């Protein structure tokens, strides 16, 4: 089902919300109100300075129904995966306080909150450690008309629960907008590995919001291969003592792609640890943006936080903006951050060539190796293999360098 009349994103906001439980109507109402007041971001919005969203904000889309990702793996015993729509109808109290992104959602996350019609809730109860990964595919409409979907996923892990979630945002064209929100809540000692792949994902605005209790662990590995316009935000709130998160990402852009990765880690409790490694390659006329912030709150003593972003520029027409930053209000912390933008290492190139490897092949080897070190962290062998192949397919002479690592 498609809403017949295309509208701008803001124009599609209803004036009142009449369906669902009262708390949801209130939540959607607040989100809509915030949007009417603030509007959607523009180039003047600091966090959106480098993201050319105007084309999205001004465009008209028809809202496609659904937004429920396809489960392409079995749901293991002990885990439940339910439609948000059904739970909201049958047992809405289970979701109260779970869909508010930790406060007042803004911008595209607010839009999703106001407008999502369905979604998926994956719940791993306390003590259940799942070995087999759960795989989700967010297929994008093949309609020739501009459409928007609002996928919504909620993942909850009880004490000592463990889960690997693999999400793929599949190929789509630049007329289709996916505005997704994934919320993750990790109870004490819960461990989650979250693999997220964007492959030529059309127009994407994605948000992952993670709330972590004591001693929980969250690992995110994001691989972005192309994208007409992609904006990805991941935020981890380390709320319980000893929680840890590791955020890794690899991106490769060419042509006129624009991909934009933002991370935000908030150390709100003591003895937490966070580590971030993002690596990207920009070729052609493409633009890549990395903006990462680590906030260490006043009581978060004994924090350890590291952040690194490295970029390879393979063409003079390509652009990289990188902005890693730290805001530290505690005094007993170990923090580091760094960013580089450069070309291939001359010493390495010469070493390969001096051994007989032709120049263009040497280029490909070093280009591939640069991202492979992050792809190697993908916590799911079939996806890891698929990403390696996808990377090889995008690199000149990819076929000749298979097996390099």
């Amino acid at each position, binding site marked *: 089902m498609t809403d017949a009349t295309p509208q701008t994103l803001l124009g599609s906001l209803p004036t009142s919300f009449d369906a669902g439980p009262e708390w949801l109507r209130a939540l959607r109402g607040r989100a809509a109100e915030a949007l009417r007041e603030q509007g959607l971001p523009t180039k003047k919005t600091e966090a959106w300075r480098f993201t050319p969203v105007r084309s999205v904000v001004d465009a008209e889309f028809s809202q496609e129904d659904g937004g429920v990702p396809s489960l392409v793996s079995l749901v293991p015993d002990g885990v439940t995966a339910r439609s948000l729509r059904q739970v909201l109808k049958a047992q809405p109290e289970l979701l109260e306080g779970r869909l508010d992104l930790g406060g007042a959602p803004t911008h595209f996350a607010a839009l999703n909150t106001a407008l999502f019609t369905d979604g998926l809730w994956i719940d791993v109860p306390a003590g259940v450690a799942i070995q087999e990964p759960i795989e989700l595919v967010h297929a994008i409409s093949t309609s020739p008309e501009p459409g928007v979907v609002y996928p919504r996923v909620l993942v909850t892990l009880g004490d000592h629960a463990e889960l690997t979630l693999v999400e793929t945002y599949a190929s789509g064209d630049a007329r289709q907008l996916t505005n997704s929100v994934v919320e993750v809540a990790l109870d004490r000692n819960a461990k989650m590995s979250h693999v997220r792949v964007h492959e030529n994902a059309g127009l994407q605005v994605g948000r992952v919001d993670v709330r972590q209790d004591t001693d929980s662990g969250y690992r995110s590995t994001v691989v972005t291969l192309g994208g007409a316009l992609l904006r990805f935000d991941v935020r981890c709130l380390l709320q319980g003592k000893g929680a840890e998160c590791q955020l890794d990402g690899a991106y490769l852009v060419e042509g006129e792609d624009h991909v934009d990765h933002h991370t935000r880690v908030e150390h709100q409790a003591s003895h937490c640890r966070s580590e971030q490694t993002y690596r990207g390659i920009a070729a052609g006329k493409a633009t890549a943006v990395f903006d990462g912030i680590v906030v260490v709150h006043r009581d978060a003593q004994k924090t350890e936080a590291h952040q690194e972003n490295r970029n390879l520029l393979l063409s003079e027409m390509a652009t990289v903006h990188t902005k890693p930053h730290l805001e530290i209000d505690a005094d007993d912390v170990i923090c580091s951050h760094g960013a580089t933008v450069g070309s291939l290492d001359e010493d390495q190139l010469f*070493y390969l060539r*001096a051994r*007989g490897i032709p*120049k263009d*092949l040497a280029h490909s080897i070093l280009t*591939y*190796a640069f991202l492979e070190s992050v792809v190697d962290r993908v916590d799911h062998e079939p996806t890891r293999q698929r990403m390696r192949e996808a990377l090889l397919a995008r690199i000149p002479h990819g076929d*000749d360098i298979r097996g390099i690592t």
Partner: protein
Amino acid sequence: MLKIEDLHAEVDGKPILKGINLEIEAGQVHAVMGPNGSGKSTLAYVLAGRDGYEVTKGRVFYKGKDLLEMPPEVRAAEGVFLGFQYPVAIPGVSNIYFLKAALNAIRKHRGEEPLDAIDFMKLSKEKAALVQLSDELTKRSVNDGFSGGEKKRNEIFQMAVLEPSLAVLDETDSGLDIDALRVVAEGVNSLRGPERAMLVITHYQRLLDYIVPDVVHVLIDGQIVRTGGKDLAKQLEQEGYTEVQDALQP
């Protein structure tokens, strides 16, 4: 094998080599000795074809061909090998994959079939044993996390697999303790043969106790100031470069 004629080269506009003449026959090992800054590494890089080392005058013939015309990978494919003074680490590229790719690129250049995985593993095991390089090291990323000695052994391992006609070994002894030096030297010696020439570049005479050269050249300020037999190295060790240099002053 190699004929260098009046070679001048500069780096960043600064003249480093100021007229080198040198001829090496197949089967010979020549040593080039010299103090720091004399141009030893520049000579090695010029022969291997590194960007930024600009030849301003002179010619270099390798097996009768103009070496300076060739890009680095063609020099390698034609049989020129540079053993690096500071081998660079390349994280993410496996040592063994890289070497197989290099060997097969060279074989392709010569019109030979690529070596398959099984034959290559056999070859690499045999050659790794020569310099006591462990299986684990051959499989790691190129020089990544290798100690100084392991890097140098890896260089000789690569040379053993690639079987060059002309090996230029740039300060292969630097950073090696005596045991590692012996292993590396034995590896080099086992590769000596009537078809192969070597140019061993070193600051110290010590290496030449193990790799005994046929000819020794003394390089000072971009020029070869003396040439002699293996005893010249010993003499240098006793007298030092300064004496040799002073003795040459008019």
